[in-house]
């Protein structure tokens, strides 16, 4: 017997009798000689206490570092009710809301999640979530390719390289041509975009704040793209949207990105949650689940999965995407975080991230070990040129318990100071940097 397996010998006997066979083995005759004759070579069962000890042994080999590195994995305040609510079995142990009458909890929070995504990005319609910001960017490109029937993709070189790696993989196997728009002064180069643009280009994809943390200016992009019928895709860090211009204000066709910064732990990289939103014109090209409002037979408000004719279970190889399971629990987490933080809270938190980053930059420059690289405005990450050896800096700081900034190339280091960093932590870090 095992605690997760309730059958007793008499249960098994009664069930076999009902089926009309003598042994469980008879159920597996079709397997023939594929059937294993000896037990798997894995460890013996563990009790809860043994598991706890084993996990603690592993956990103790990890080192929690004080981080000044972002690059898509951010820190936000942990509010106790988030775990209390997302651990509720009704959310945790249910699945995709195939039976809407007993899934209104899930359907409504997805509707609210879509509302949040639309509100933040200014887009008309969003889906129920994507795996992460990288796959949502790839899927945004596929939407543009399908909408324009063009095969070429222009990507800004200032997009996070980890997003680019995924996008490159997706595009390569789909036989799409990628060309990069070069960077100029740590932002995408409009002149290079103009040069590379032609009638075969399905979309131009850019990121703001970009990999260097810089807020890019897209005021001339849409008009540039219009002539060739090229769509504009913006990947944007969503915590920046309370303060700064949204994809809609730059007339983007599709908005995408990752929402990890809104209440999700770093968790060694996942689970995170991607968002994907667009204007009404392209609503039928969206991949994944979409929830819509409706009424029941008594006229009561309710929610259902809608526009399902886009999806794999109906359209199979003609579907807009293959996505089925998504990151629903993370969409719930983000929704609870945004509900709790609220309008003023979101503005306040992004101002703090902004202020912390600017303070860190100022203080790091005072050590005289860095050179300012650009005067472009930035949000919560920024790039400096280190005058010493970045590897030495990284190693020395690591020994002191710090995850220093990300050395993207040469002597360039991208630093991040989240809203949770205190002045004392920043001061101490800068002091240590100065001593290296």
């Amino acid at each position, binding site marked *: 017997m095992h605690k*997760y397996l309730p*059958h007793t010998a008499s249960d098994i006997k009664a069930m076999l009798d009902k089926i009309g066979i003598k042994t469980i083995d008879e*159920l*597996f*005759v*079709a397997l023939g000689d*594929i059937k*294993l004759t000896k037990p*798997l070579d*894995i*460890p013996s*069962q563990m009790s809860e206490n043994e598991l706890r000890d084993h996990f603690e042994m*592993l*956990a*103790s*080999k*990890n080192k929690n570092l004080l981080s000044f*590195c972002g*690059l898509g*994995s951010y820190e936000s305040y942990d509010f106790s009710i988030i775990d209390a609510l997302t*651990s509720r079995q*009704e*959310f945790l*142990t*249910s*699945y*995709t809301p*195939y039976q809407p*009458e007993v*899934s*209104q909890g*899930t359907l*409504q929070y997805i*509707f*609210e999640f879509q509302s949040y995504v639309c*509100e*933040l990005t200014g887009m008309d319609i969003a889906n129920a979530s994507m795996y992460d910001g990288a796959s949502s960017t790839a899927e945004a490109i*596929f939407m543009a390719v399908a909408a324009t029937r063009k095969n070429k993709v222009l990507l800004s070189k200032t997009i996070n390289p980890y997003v680019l790696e995924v996008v*490159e*993989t997706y595009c390569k*196997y*789909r*036989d799409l041509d990628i060309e990069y728009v070069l960077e100029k002064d740590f932002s995408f180069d409009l002149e290079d975009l103009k040069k590379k643009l032609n009638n075969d280009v399905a979309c131009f994809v850019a990121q703001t704040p970009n990999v260097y943390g810089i807020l890019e200016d897209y005021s001339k992009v849409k008009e540039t793209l219009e002539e060739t019928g090229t769509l504009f895709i913006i990947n944007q860090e969503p915590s920046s949207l309370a303060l*700064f211009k949204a994809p809609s204000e730059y007339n983007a066709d599709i908005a995408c990105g990752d929402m990890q910064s809104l209440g999700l732990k*770093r*968790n060694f*990289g*996942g689970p995170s949650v991607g968002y994907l939103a667009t204007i009404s014109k392209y609503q039928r090209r969206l991949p994944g689940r979409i929830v819509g409002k*409706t009424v029941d037979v008594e006229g009561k408000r309710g929610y259902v999965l809608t526009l399902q004719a886009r*999806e*794999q279970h109906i*359209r199979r*190889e003609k579907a807009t995407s*293959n996505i089925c399971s998504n990151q629903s629990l993370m969409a719930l987490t983000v929704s*609870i975080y945004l509900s709790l933080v*609220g309008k*003023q809270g979101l503005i306040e938190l992004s101002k703090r991230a902004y*202020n912390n980053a600017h303070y860190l930059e100022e203080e790091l420059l005072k050590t005289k070990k860095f050179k300012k690289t650009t005067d472009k405005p930035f949000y919560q990450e920024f790039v400096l040129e280190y005058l010493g050896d970045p590897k030495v800096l990284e190693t020395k700081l690591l020994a002191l318990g710090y*995850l220093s900034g990300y050395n993207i190339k040469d002597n360039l280091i991208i630093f991040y100071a989240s809203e949770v960093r*205190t002045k004392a932590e920043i001061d101490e870090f800068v002091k240590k940097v100065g001593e290296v």
Partner: protein
Amino acid sequence: MYDKLIFERSKEGRVGITLPKTEVKDYPLPKEHLTKRDLLLPEVSEVDVIRHYTNLSLKNYGVDRGIYPLGSCTMKYNPKINEELSKNPKFNNLHPLQPDVTSQGALELEYNLEKLLNEILGLKAFSFAPCAGAHGELTGLMMIKAYHEKNKDYKRKKILIPDSAHGTNPASVAIAGFEVVNLRSTEEGTVDVEHLKEVLDDEVAGMMLTNPNTAGLYEKDICIITKLVHDAGGLMYYDGANFNALLGLAKPSAMGFDVIHLNLHKTFSTPHGGGGPGVGAVGAGEKLKTFLPNKHVRLENGLYVRRKEKDSIGNVSYFQGNYNVILKAYAYILSMGKENIRNVGEFAVLNANYVKAALEEYYEVPVKGAIMHEVVFNGLKSKKASTLDVAKRLLDYGFHPSTIYFPLLFSQSMMVEPVETESKETIDEFIDALIKIAHEAEKTPELLHDAPHTTPVRRLDEVLAARELKVKYRDLL
């Protein structure tokens, strides 16, 4: 009954958080970048948020409440200890880019899990980068493509898929830049080997197969199928969504599969979370192991390190996928252990056959012979009510219905998967409800047609939802 959106609870000035004091001064914001929008976000107190989401949760059905026999989804019990273990801050606070030397425990765990799965599936290597089953399919197909390209075999553009396959299979094939060739099933519901022989040629890159298939049947010709495909130069992809049936009993490698994905959120007990996160772990045999995506954990001189494989297809997810979910799958395997793991497959299959035996008098069984871990009925034998009506009536009895209208092989499919963590008593109650419903269909079919009667909302107008599309709060204003 509670019915508000969080936005409709908003009152100007309310706050839900207390922030610590900050000593950092304000820096001027760049004016030209500031948004001109006035965001419509809720202003609510902490209690408002608790009440709101608690009330929402009460409108949901989860595995902790009762049987959730959603076929093809393996809704088994999600152990609480796994949740506890996954919340260890020493894992939760790891930055994915922190150096390997500072994340040895996390990497060792991933390495250990890979070794366990290698043994369970008979494979050589696993990647946990894909975030769900469909993502794993896409990854595996990219690996197949990369393999043929490495062999300069560029004409292989076709992937074979049986008509019983899950919708994600053909969709993944298209996204991976292949063409789908549909394979017919036999009367019995398994792959038609004669049709397979007809379509096999030197343009076939591979074949995707679920075994047991979506009709709950073991592909008895599996070794013939994999040999035929291999002889034609193709590779075999195993959709492991149904692996629960064979857990501890058989290894897909022995059937001849080259690459597979497992849904850790099915077979390995990690919670489904209202639709995710999952993990579509991709496993590969000798031919494909060097093609795995992202970085892969290796043990080098006593140190666990992340390395790209030499023929890697590239990255398919941001860093390393849904890392936190794999902690739970690892805990699950260790808590089952070698003594019990085999019982998982045995009891899952026993339960499904028991449900079939108990219900075949009332519900049509469209396939012949022994089934595996799930039983597909083609609706009521009497045809007095549709599968939809039966499912909705089950809700009144307090049960989550089976998967309905899938597989597409039968017009009234009801796909029941009574997983191994369900007791005989629970399954008997579920069976009794379905028998009662079969009787009701004869005497009072309107009871079924008007069902459900007892749920937070009743039948919903899906046509209206699509026609008058309202997908966000602003659309309701």
